């Protein structure tokens, strides 16, 4: 199956391709449902994902002024309450005042479209634009690891390419990305940007898209690093394992997906039932 003309590239599917072309093919190209457990304990993994989503929503509401710091909608204890206290006590330092939460940007790239959804973009007009990404994972990655991730490359590159609505004439050197860790609020990772890196990211992303679009083999290559397969739901299809990896064993190399699997049944579907289909 060739790449559909309306395919959208994003940091997650590009990272999948870099990690394992076969996973990209199964998950994003063939969109093959393979609902094995991603990580064990499954209920705890699900709770982590849900708490992460709830934290993102809280910060979104706070930035928009919908809730105050002393909001009654928080649970009294648990990670969400801890993260919230950490966010209030040690937010990313030195952010410009103009805060734009939940911004989506996209731009053409090698005959397709590249898209990214930002947690927060903070702008000081004519001076700088800061990308903030909230991380609620249990572990803090080792320094330097994040700079190679597709998220870092795509987010900074795309802000320069497509952020002119927000910041006319934005230059790479005016961009910085901050990963803020809810469990390690005093250890954010700050990643500045420059024209050289912008050029390199543009080349890399273009090459990746061209490479993916040009593939026509029935089975894309499997990753050589089988440790990644522990947290991949397709492990049984590829004959690379039976049980899911343990959350405690996840490391930088074999990262647990931060997002839940695509929710293919979300929302109302007109075709679902004849009687009422509101």
């Amino acid at each position, binding site marked *: 199956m060739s790449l559909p003309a309306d395919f959208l590239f994003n940091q997650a599917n590009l990272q999948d391709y870099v990690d394992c072309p076969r996973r990209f093919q199964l998950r994003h190209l063939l969109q093959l449902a393979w609902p094995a457990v991603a990580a064990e304990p499954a209920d705890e993994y699900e709770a982590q994902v849900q708490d992460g989503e709830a934290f993102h929503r809280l910060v979104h509401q706070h930035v928009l002024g919908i809730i105050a710091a002393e909001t009654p909608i928080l649970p009294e204890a648990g990670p969400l309450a801890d993260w919230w206290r950490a966010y209030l006590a040690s937010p990313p330092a030195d952010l410009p005042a103009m805060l734009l939460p939940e911004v989506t940007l996209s731009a053409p790239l090698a005959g397709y479209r590249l898209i990214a959804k930002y947690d927060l973009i903070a702008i000081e007009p004519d001076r700088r634009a800061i990308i903030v990404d909230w991380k609620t994972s249990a572990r803090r990655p080792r320094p330097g690891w994040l700079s190679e991730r597709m998220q870092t490359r795509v987010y900074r590159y795309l802000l320069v390419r497509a952020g002119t*609505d927000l910041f006319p004439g934005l230059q790479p050197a005016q961009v910085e990305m901050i990963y803020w860790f809810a469990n390690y609020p005093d250890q954010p990772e700050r990643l500045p940007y420059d024209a050289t890196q912008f050029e390199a990211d543009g080349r890399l992303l273009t090459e990746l898209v061209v490479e993916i679009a040009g593939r026509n083999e029935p089975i894309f290559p499997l990753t050589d690093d089988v440790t990644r397969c522990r947290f991949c739901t397709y492990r049984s299809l590829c004959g690379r394992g039976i049980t899911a990896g343990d959350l405690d064993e996840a490391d930088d190399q074999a990262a647990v997906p931060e997002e839940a699997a695509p929710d293919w049944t979300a929302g109302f579907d007109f075709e679902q039932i004849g009687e009422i289909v509101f």
Partner: protein
Amino acid sequence: MSLPPLTESQKACLALPLDRPIFLEGPAGTGKTTLAAARLLRWLEAGVPARAILVLTPQRTLAAAYTAVLRHPTAPPGGEVTVATLGGLAQRMIELFWPQVAEPAGFAAPTRPPISLTLETAQYYMARVVRPLLEEGYFDTIRVDRNRLYSQILDNLNKAAVIGFPYTEIAARLKAAWVGEAAQARVYDEAQECAARFREYCLAHNLLDFSLQYEVFARHLWPLPACRQYLIGRYTHLIADNIEEDTPVAHDLLAEWLPHCRAALLICDQNGGYRRFLGADPESAYRLRDLCREHVIFTASLIATPAMRALGRAMARALGHRGELTGHARPTSAATPADAPTGPRAALDYRAHRFYPEMLDWVADEIGRLVHEEGTPPAEIVVLAPYLTDALRFALATRLAARNVPVRSHRPSRALREEPATQCLLTIAALCHPAWGIQPTKYDVAHALMLAIDDLDLVRARLLAEIAYRVRDGRPTLLPFVDLEPAMQERITFLLGGRYEGLRTWVAARVEETRQPRPHRPDRPGSRRPASMPPTASLDHFFSRLFGELLSQPGYGFHRHHDAGEITANLIESVRKFRQIMPAPTAGDTFDLGREYVQMVQDGVVAAQYVRRWQRQPQDAVLLAPAYTFLMSNRPVSHQFWLDVGGMGWWERLYQPLTHPYVLSRRWAGGAWTDADEYTARQDALTALVLGLLRRCRTAIHLGLSELGESGNEQRGPLLQAVQRVLREA
């Protein structure tokens, strides 16, 4: 999708000042949406930030043209245009502004997050509310399937929300219009009480069904200054397409929004209103015309040939259409179909048959000829019927497959709970949870084994179930393969026996786990579960494990059958949503969610919907669909095949004893709903449907005619009579 060359009318409309509010109307197929997409791109090119643009459609399928343009590589870089339905927008706003709106909207626990109900989970709660009342004799005078009863009560709540009247007035409105036996009035009162109890339950437990989402948004969020300012401040440029298919409350909102927009384009299809049974109100949409400075009408069809347009006029006459018929003017651009002086017969192709299967053979032959001899792309052909039964879908799909024609359908042929893969998963779940007290039959176990174990045929599966499956002290058990007689082991084969043993030991391990839950894990950063709380294995996680650790492994049945993965994914999602709406268990609680779910599956309350396709569907394939579903895809084709032309299904409304789409509308002025009203409504609906189909057809309508219908009855419905009149007069 790149846009086609524009006609003169489209160019003129595009050239209007960008900040001008425009009301654009015209029949389907006159290029309104293409113009709107061009104007959207023009806004972007002029520097309007994408995030300031909102495209509203009544249904997601109607937004396809916009998403295609916005996803195209030639679209400029920038932010994201929001493409949404009002229901979707309401859901997002409730999630965002919940802390400010929960208490005024009457929710009992405003500090806790809301829980959105799907259609399935709403039906589950409605069933919980209604079931005790059924035991008391409620609804005993009507004969309708319980699930349809639940869904019609939900339907009434939804109608109240989208039309904008208090849900407490449902029964009064229905009773005022009723002219039949007095006993029906009691049924309406009972439906009212069920609706009220359901609403109270939702408010008490932070549950949001569709009706409550819509009401909370319209009555509480939209008037809330913070929310209104958020929406009005952000979305300064608005496109609302197919407003004739949207609801009066949506129109109210647009009427209040328009004065705040810097630019707007409202698009209305003439002779539309196909979603009337969902609260669509085309007449209400026209209120918005007076709020727009420009009023533009497109009249020339860019789709239909002269013969097709002539057929439209003739069919409208034959159906007694009373109003002015638009959309039959000649096109004004070279990009439009070539004109030729032809009558309506030139657009019709038909063959009369005695029996239904003969008609289906003819349809399949004709489609095969169009595809293989005339080179028509399969995607340019649709097969339409008022209702597409599973039997009809199967009969057609089989015939077309035999002629090497690719086919796609609007949905798979079976409900989720009827899928063999679902049955297999539920049977193994019962084996793994003896505490449920569910003992699968040997028949169920044999079929589960056959599906679960690769290469195990039904004969061996039955043999295995007969010998190795036991119920001891009420607990279902699988015996080890080594315990079987050697001769029997040889009959099963050792290869399959090994796979059976793998399944049996996996099941035994899960049974053991249910007796002894997994050990506690110490707390760690980000862990929600305190060390004092034991881990639980929920049913959806159980199914994920069953799939990943066993059934999808090499040697087992789901490894090579990817459809089974899709079905499992749907089942898991159904269980997960079911679990997420259930209250958290308390100490000493004997309620077992897994057992409750399986019980609800058996009652047909959950897993009754159709498997949703996650995989991409083949696009170049003949589409089999109900006629209204095709209309809501808003896509023209070259050839339409209409089946059951003599059937009453084209004319009759669905039997809905608890609700009424016309009485529960804003236009209904009160008074009785008479037979004359019903006749007029049906005739108008059929006319609109026929014109809608003809306006979405380029070349030919092929009529599948058979004297006897699918169930063997003689067919002489109004659509057939209208066709006969057209043929006589042509």
